[in-house]
């Protein structure tokens, strides 16, 4: 949670870690979440390696924020200060280590504000959930997928060939992809990965 160092001690947000949950005052859209544990339901083991799984309810939730049956993007209005509590940031990302890592890297790479990122993140999370027909709650997979979508799309915009290479690597083993292997593989082309074929 390395991003925390730049995020602590904000005027706008105060938080007190209590057990697994976080008590926060949040302004202006999400306010007075008296019991965040009711909002974020932490339970169970997490296949992605962190300690919690997050339930993201699709119906109404406690507090001032009411979400209708049709998922709506969660908008977080920029407060003018990005440095809010790191733990709250992690909390928003469901304490999902992969999502947190991706978020940190994204913010560093793009220079985006934390608040903008979180807005984007919640938007994506809702989009993912809205595509699921049943009332599945958000879990670690959804949190990580939302963060991944954001990061990958940013990479696509930033460097198309890099995104292309990464997708190609999805058809190799996921470990120990040697640099010289990539270099030899692309050596004859002079340029990077132009599809050799598209099946009909």
């Amino acid at each position, binding site marked *: 949670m390395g991003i925390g160092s730049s995020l602590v001690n904000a005027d706008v947000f105060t938080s007190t870690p209590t057990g697994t949950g976080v008590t926060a005052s949040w302004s202006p859209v999400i306010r007075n979440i008296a019991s965040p544990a009711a909002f974020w339901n932490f339970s169970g083991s997490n296949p992605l390696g962190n300690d919690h799984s997050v339930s993201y309810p699709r119906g109404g939730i406690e507090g001032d924020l009411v979400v209708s049956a049709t998922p709506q993007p969660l908008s977080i209005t920029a407060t003018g200060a990005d440095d809010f509590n790191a733990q709250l940031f992690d909390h928003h990302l469901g304490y999902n280590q992969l999502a947190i890592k991706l978020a940190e890297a994204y913010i560093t790479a793009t220079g985006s504000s934390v608040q903008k990122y979180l807005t984007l993140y919640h938007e994506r999370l809702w989009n993912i959930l809205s595509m699921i027909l049943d009332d599945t709650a958000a879990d670690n997979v959804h949190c990580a997928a939302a963060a991944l979508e954001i990061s990958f799309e940013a990479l696509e915009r930033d460097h198309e060939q890099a995104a292309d290479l990464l997708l190609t690597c999805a058809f190799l083993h996921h470990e120990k992809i040697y640099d010289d292997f990539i270099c030899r593989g692309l050596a004859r082309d002079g340029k990077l990965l132009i599809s050799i*074929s598209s099946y009909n």
Partner: protein
Amino acid sequence: MHPTDPTIKKIIAKILSYSLIERTSNHSAFSIQSFIHTWLKERLDVRESKEKLLDAVRLTGQSVSYEEPRRFDHWAFKKRIVLHLQVCWQHTREYLQSKPPMDKVRDFIGNLSWIAHVFYELQYWREAEEIDTRMVTLCRNYFGESDLDTLKAMTNLAMTLHKQERFNEAEELQVKVLPMEKEVLGESHPDTLTSMACLAGTLYSQRRFSEAEELDIKVLPMRKEVLGESHPDTLTAMANLAMLLYKQERFNEAEELQVKVLPMRKEVLGESHPDTLKSMGCLAMTLYSQRRFSEAEELQVKVLPMRKEVLGESHPGTLRSMACLAVTLYSQKRFSEAEELEVKVLPMRKEVLGESHPDTLQAMENLAITLSARERWKEAAELCTRLVAISKETLGEVHPSTVKRIQQLEDYKEAQLSQIGQYSPPTQLQERLVLLLCLSKTHVC
């Protein structure tokens, strides 16, 4: 290692900056977290998946076909990337259910054949054969039976079958390919000559030496004429013919050819080219077989460090050089020096080739023999017990090698009992052992 291209370096750095990949500890490679890896595949639709898979096939195919001048570390490189090739092939197998478009299929097959070639070189026979078989089918369906790529695919499959000692199946394919190539390409076309040489190799492996020689004798002058006297393929034909003569124990004739090939390979390919080193090793073997041990040793001590440098310490060729040198030392009764090498070879062969590989078994046998020569019967018997168990399992109880090893084990046990005074060995035991050692150590290289 290939110097990393700055463009590629930048691309990798860009992906790293988004934490979508992670650097390995030595910074020479990267890994993708398994969740991300799965997610990447799942976000593609069917058409995109096929495109990216074909990119992956192209990437892997080109990476192994890429050759840097005067660098021969390909084996180590291929070992490093074989896992990627396996995964790539798994995906390709699924996608081959659908039909690749005609205009791209040759490129696809070309890259796939390089992947098959790596499996072949690394002795991943299941994968090599599977790809080769698919390629033959693909080529037949797309290009027809007598297309050159179809014929090449059949030749490749035959070679893979040959390496698995399925000589009849290999020969069956080769005798189909050869007349077709003669018809399509002509008798003296380099590909036709290669097919003849391959068929000769299959006959040679079946110990049908006169038939093999008949073909090799045709290939050599035709290659000289078509390709030139000093062309690498012509030199290979000479080297093959020399091996054929060697196998027939016509050592003088074999040596005569080998001493011609060696300086030509040095000149054409360079002193440290793997084929030049192979020529040195073969000549050493011919000298050894004529009991010219010191001359053989002289060559072998030159070859070994060069192979280490060129191929790497654990390359099968390097290990073979060590094993051959050990045999030469043994034959000069320099048992401790032989043992010193053999105790290095055995664990490396186990690691590189697997415990039940014939070369590993040979290394176990050689070491057991050397231990017995030093009258360390208990150690020899222990090693031989394991050797017999594996031989029974892999070769069967009635295989000549298994039978020979069972006898060896009995002899070691008898000698061990005799050593501790519990058994009086037959008077001829030592003589039998010596005879056995001589038989075992012949043609070990």
